[in-house]
């Protein structure tokens, strides 16, 4: 159980201020469910009934999970998952 999950500032009220937490699971969905057991409320900020929330971006080792399999994306020990709010550029 060692997948590092980096949490953005706006969601750290769910992680007692921690910038990163650890969790386990075979898929992103399982990983988020595992985090929810220790950080209640976090799952609802990331996921709605249609999948990942529109303004939430999740990266597995820097690659956007929407292009890897969404919540079904396979994860394993040693991976880093980064959660970021969607921002504009230009």
């Amino acid at each position, binding site marked *: 159980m060692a997948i590092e999950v980096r949490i953005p*500032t*706006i969601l750290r009220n769910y992680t007692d201020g921690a910038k990163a937490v650890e969790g386990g699971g075979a898929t992103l969905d399982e990983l988020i469910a595992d985090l929810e057991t220790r950080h209640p409320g976090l799952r609802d900020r990331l996921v709605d009934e249609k999948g990942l929330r529109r303004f939430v971006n999740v990266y597995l080792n*820097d690659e956007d999970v929407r*292009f890897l399999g969404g919540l079904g994306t396979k994860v394993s020990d040693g991976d880093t998952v980064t959660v970021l709010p969607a*921002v*504009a*550029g230009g």
Partner: protein
Amino acid sequence: MRFDSLLDSLGRTPLVGLPRLSPSPEVRLWAKLEDRNPTGSVKDRPAFWMIAKAEKEGLLAPGRTILEPTSGNTGISLAMVAKLRGYDIVCVMPENTSAERRQLLEMWGARIISSPAAGGSNEAVRVAKRLAAENPDWVMLYQYGNEANARAHYETTGPELLDDLPTITHFVAGLGTTGTLMGVGRYLREQVPGVSIVAAEPRYGELVYGLRNIDEGFVPELYDESVLTTRYSVTSADALRRTRELLAQEGIFAGISTGCALHAALGMANKAVKAGERADIAFIVADGGWKYLSTGAYGGTLEEAEERLEGQLWA
């Protein structure tokens, strides 16, 4: 090459090979030098196309005022075109953008309204939308949702790339308004079966992501996920390192967002090498490094440069 005016010289930028950074003769990297446009950035293309479209639709006439939220390059391009065409321009710009960008905007006659650093460009968009509502006679071109932004690249950048590199397998560009990726991506997908369209998204320091509710995030209206093959988030440290490598190994002095695109392009190149496949990977040099000298990106150690860039909008 001779042109009737500066605006006529837009586009037809060079595509140059990177013999030192390319991993092998079968897996090659190509840089499209968009800094060779009239104001020195890729944004001259969408700026010109958005203004031309607004003129055609009768929205713009001399004496009118253009409004645009921009972290810099789009504003600079719009200000140059506006100057030549007789428009006033107001740019809403986050306060955490480089000093050079402000100076250039002012040189071309733009009025700058600063938006708070926290929240970055999301805040600039919010402020600009409010100003647009308060000033109904101003014309907001709105690069994030203006189809002429993507069309500029569909009609020009895409065909130029394919003309110069018919064997293209990958296209990589920075993700901001998404206009470059949407326009070039759609064009190449129509012309080149199996082409990969790869987005490189800058990952900023925490300040830029702001403290608002996550439901108030921003996805440009132009963005269509189905055009992309994949999308990478590139840290400031990786972008800086690649920007310096491009300068040291290939002699190209580019802005930091180019390092971001190069990082993703090299990732694609390594994948191709591992898979034993040939690849011709083109990426966009969005601008030169001149506008970022004051950020300290090019001097001292990488760690120092990264620290100085914390909280800055570098793309």
